[in-house]
């Protein structure tokens, strides 16, 4: 029992770590689609993390009972639900915004620079782009 829990915790921690790492990597990419996916992965990671903050337990009742040795913590589940709803809404929003950016800027580059548009002078290119 104890070993299985220990390994379960290790597994969950590993999953959270991998999700976060992938999320950070993708969020740092230059195009909007990977960025959106990266932010989604980050939110998955944090949701899982929140869920685990109540500790991993097996077979413990969430409501009061006479035979219970202990109780599963119900609060993290409520927090996760809230966080899921919020991140869901935010993801929907940023997807729409990326589509709008693709339409308005003509590129899915996060800085709105066209492909192959190398900026010889960072300052000039930035300002020129802003006026466009």
């Amino acid at each position, binding site marked *: 029992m104890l070993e299985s829990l220990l390994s379960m915790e290790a597994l969950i921690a590993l999953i959270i770590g991998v999700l976060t790492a992938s999320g950070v990597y993708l*969020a740092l990419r230059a195009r909007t689609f990977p960025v959106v996916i990266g932010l989604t992965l980050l*939110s998955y990671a*944090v949701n899982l993390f929140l869920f685990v903050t109540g500790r991993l337990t097996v077979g413990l009742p969430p409501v009061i009972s006479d035979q219970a040795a202990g109780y599963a913590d119900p609060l993290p589940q409520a*927090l996760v639900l809230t966080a899921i709803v919020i991140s869901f809404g935010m993801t929907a929003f*940023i997807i729409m915004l990326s589509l709008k950016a693709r339409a308005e800027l003509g590129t899915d580059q*996060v*800085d709105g620079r066209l492909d192959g548009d190398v900026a010889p002078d960072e300052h000039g290119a930035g300002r020129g782009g802003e006026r466009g």
Partner: protein
Amino acid sequence: MSHLIIAPILFPLLAATLLLLVRRVIPLRVRRSLNLVALVIQILLVSLLVQRVAGGEILVYALGNWPAPYGIVMVADRLSVWMLLVTSLVAFFAMLYAVRGTDAGSRHFHPLFQLQLFGLSGAFLTGDLFNLFVFFEILLLASYGLLLHRGGANRVRAGLHFVALNLAGSTLFLFAVGTLYAILGTLNMADLAVKAAATPPENLGVVRAAGLLLFVVFALKAALIPLYLWLPAAYSSTSAPVAALFAIMTKVGAYSILRVYTLIFGAEAGPVADLIGPWLLPLALATMTIGTLGMLAAHELRRQIAYLVVVSVGLLLTAFALGTEASIGAGLYYLAHSTFAAAAFFLLADMIAMGRGTLADRLDPGPVIANANLIGGFFFVTAILVSGLPPLSGFLGKYMVLNAAADLPSMPWVFGVILSAGLLGVIALARSGSLLFYRAEGLIERTGAAGRHAVGPNWGRLLPIIGLLLLCVTLVVWAGPLSDYTRATAEQLLEPSVYIRAVLGDPPSP
């Protein structure tokens, strides 16, 4: 338990819902008046609350009558109500400007504006860390909509960065909150303060890490160096009334820093006391320096004002970082001033930009704008105000911060940075003023401008600017009672045990 405490949260939500429902039914003119009336009522509600808490009482509202720490509580103390007052006043004048035409083109501007207010009020009043996250998300989601109002390539690009950064920030916030809950087993801020002070040594590292992670999140909202990079683009590309309202947004971060690091990780927190002490002052001073350099380098007036917001955040957090009663009190006084002044400046920059045609607010010599003397006069007054020259409230705020720093060991740094940032700020604004108003070009443009002189100044748009400037004058005229209030606020903040007792009741054993 008075329901007045939650009224500043519920009322904007109600107004937003109403405005959303009637957006197709009622003409824009009526919706504008409805929104303005709602904002006036909000100011009145907050004023009632000010009267209740000014004496030092901490009002607690337990949602659903669940006692803390099991239920979520709303807490109104001097600090939250001061923030609410500043917010509702800025919101009113920003809306007064927006109804002059900015709000056209989208049916959702008015509901979003009220939702933004809903999120802001909630963030200031909540006594629960997770609830703070939720209200952050509400105000952010509304702010995304407002930022992108009327679209355009600039706004979309700045908006994309703003949204992506804030989503990453929210994730960090959740990680920090989750860690705190996992170790301390509570989310109520007062209860967190009690539990954090009693952290067993083996968990100290994790709690400290979570506390510092929270600091990163709040620093992102407050635009503290190195997390300020989103601000200039976002603030300078959005519409003027939204930028004016956003003048309060960085202050949400500053408020959270002040609240969390005086209450949970404050001086009385035992092993986790003074968690961000070594970080905040250097970062705040560096923020002021970088912001000032940004002001000097800016090529557009609105970008310059956005950097001005960064500078004011630096000064504000410097005052908070010094951590004495006098410095925090001075910082809170300066907070009100800098919010009103930045909002007025954003609105004024919009008027200047409109008078310059395609040149907009770019800092290049251009045609003489219509009513140049009047607008130039306003520019002059606002520049004096924001750069902290006497006799207006910027000077008083800065003087109070400097005065509070005079006896502290960090005095040379604080004096050096604040005074040189002030000087460079004056130079930057003087250059902008002379470019915009004195080096305006000759005869060909003059005929066009002369034609516009017949139009006369747009008093409808000037009115909110005058209102905001008058608020700054009020800050000077009633500087005595107001600084007494902010000083009392600081006193209250530095005694977290009073707050904790108000929320949790008397401890069973002392």
